[in-house]
């Protein structure tokens, strides 16, 4: 039952976001900004850079450990979308055959360097984005976005997406189970049934949208939804923001990994 697993998997990331740790308690705005700056710094490196990127792993590792997030949850998802990154870089070794470095006497071409650079950048950016979701409750993110002047209509759409994705998946799950209960073997699992299933799901969703709208009207909805403001920036938030950005800046401008290497050699 593949669908069941995926369903519970999605809920899992959401469950994680309701833990109560230091990083979970941080102001979502700070976390979003820091993650955004982190991503900017990471992608700003040139295409042959590898060693200087390594210190940046500190950030996802910090979120992972301080947020008490099991690494498996994140690693699986990163792995799941990794084919995209692999395909982007896969042809680099073929086109760029110029030997750039020869560590331990092994010649390494520019193509391989840029390939690994892409993979590392991919892992860094995707894992930190996933971790941002895992350590911040979704309503928290929406609140932050709306306070950072994101147009309200998008924020509301996100809020409803979050609320009803679970309901929708639940309906879909029950439909799939009902189908499987009467589809013996592979009969009834063909594309034709699938299309009908999806169309029924669409109709059900439209019906539900109608009912939800009625429920909103019943409570005086007039086109405006107020997003609650729960967070106030505290001292810890500011310290976290400043130190992270400062560290990113140092990592960006000084090749820490290189210094370590030099120091060990000496």
């Amino acid at each position, binding site marked *: 039952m593949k669908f069941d697993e995926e369903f519970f998997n999605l809920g899992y990331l959401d469950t994680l976001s309701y833990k109560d740790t230091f990083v979970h308690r941080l102001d979502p705005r700070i976390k979003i900004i820091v993650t955004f700056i982190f991503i900017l710094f990471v992608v700003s490196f040139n295409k042959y850079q590898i060693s200087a990127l390594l210190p940046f792993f500190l950030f996802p590792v910090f979120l992972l450990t301080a947020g008490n997030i099991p690494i498996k949850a994140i690693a699986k998802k990163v792995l799941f979308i990794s084919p995209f990154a692999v395909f982007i870089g896969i042809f680099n070794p073929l086109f760029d055959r110029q030997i750039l470095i020869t560590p331990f006497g092994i010649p390494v071409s520019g193509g391989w360097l840029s390939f690994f650079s892409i993979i590392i950048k991919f892992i860094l950016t995707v894992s930190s984005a996933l971790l941002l979701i895992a350590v911040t*409750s979704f*309503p928290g993110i929406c609140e932050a976005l709306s306070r950072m002047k994101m147009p309200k209509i998008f924020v509301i759409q996100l809020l409803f997406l979050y609320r009803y994705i679970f309901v929708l998946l639940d309906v879909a799950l029950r439909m799939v189970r009902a189908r499987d209960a009467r589809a013996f073997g592979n009969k009834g699992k063909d594309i034709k049934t699938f299309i009908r299933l999806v169309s029924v799901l669409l109709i059900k969703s439209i019906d539900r949208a109608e*009912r939800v709208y009625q*429920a909103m009207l019943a409570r*005086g909805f007039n086109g405006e939804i107020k997003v*609650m403001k729960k967070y106030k920036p505290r001292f810890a938030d500011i310290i976290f923001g400043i130190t992270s950005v400062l560290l990113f800046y140092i990592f960006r401008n000084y090749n820490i990994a290189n210094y370590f290497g030099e120091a060990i050699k000496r």
Partner: protein
Amino acid sequence: MSHHIVELKDAFFKYPDGTEALKGVSFKILHGESVGIAGANGMGKTTLLLNLSGHLIPTKGEVSIGEVTLCQKTRQEIRRKVGFVFQRTDDQLFMPTVYEDVAFGPVNLGLPENKVNERVKNALEMVGCYHLKDRPPHRLSEGQKRAVAIATVIAMEPDILIMDEPASNLDPRSRRQLINLLNKFKHTKIIASHDLDLILDVCERCIIIRDGKVFADGPSDEILLNESLLEENGLELPLTRQLHNFKQSS
């Protein structure tokens, strides 16, 4: 207090697809009364409730809440007076957290923030769910969802509470808690349900709807004990009564 009287005068309702769901319903519900609405499936109970709360407007006849007659213009006003607890909690709870959901109504009423907070707290404490305030609705049990759904309506301080199948999908204990809760409210209550025991416990009056018309209207312990009347309408004697009869005959 005359302004809490609910009155239907020969109300008709026809859906756009031509289905006639109400065919001349008339009754009057006084202030503070609690009325159960029973009837077989598809007899028009939900349509009736939607007409009472301004979600639908009768195609013929009249619905009035207090001095206000329901029409396109007065819809908003009617909705403010009438709190509607929908049958499906997932439709009723649409905000990301319990707290925000309960606050939704009061915020839309234009109350200041401290008033909103006060109302949310009171409503959630009344249904015993204040500790759930930061939880997302999809992480609640059905019983908790039901209690929160009622809180969202209570927070608006309506004059009249309308509920569509409030006990559906509840386990016996949650159902009992719900009944106790409903008995605490001093509001005018209109409850549509197949759970006749619930109606017997909560409502002093019962209306039976059949084919879009009022078939019977009277005190609950009279109507709900009339076996032939109930059976004619696809209903059965409430379980407590069956047990009572069984004990007497054996």
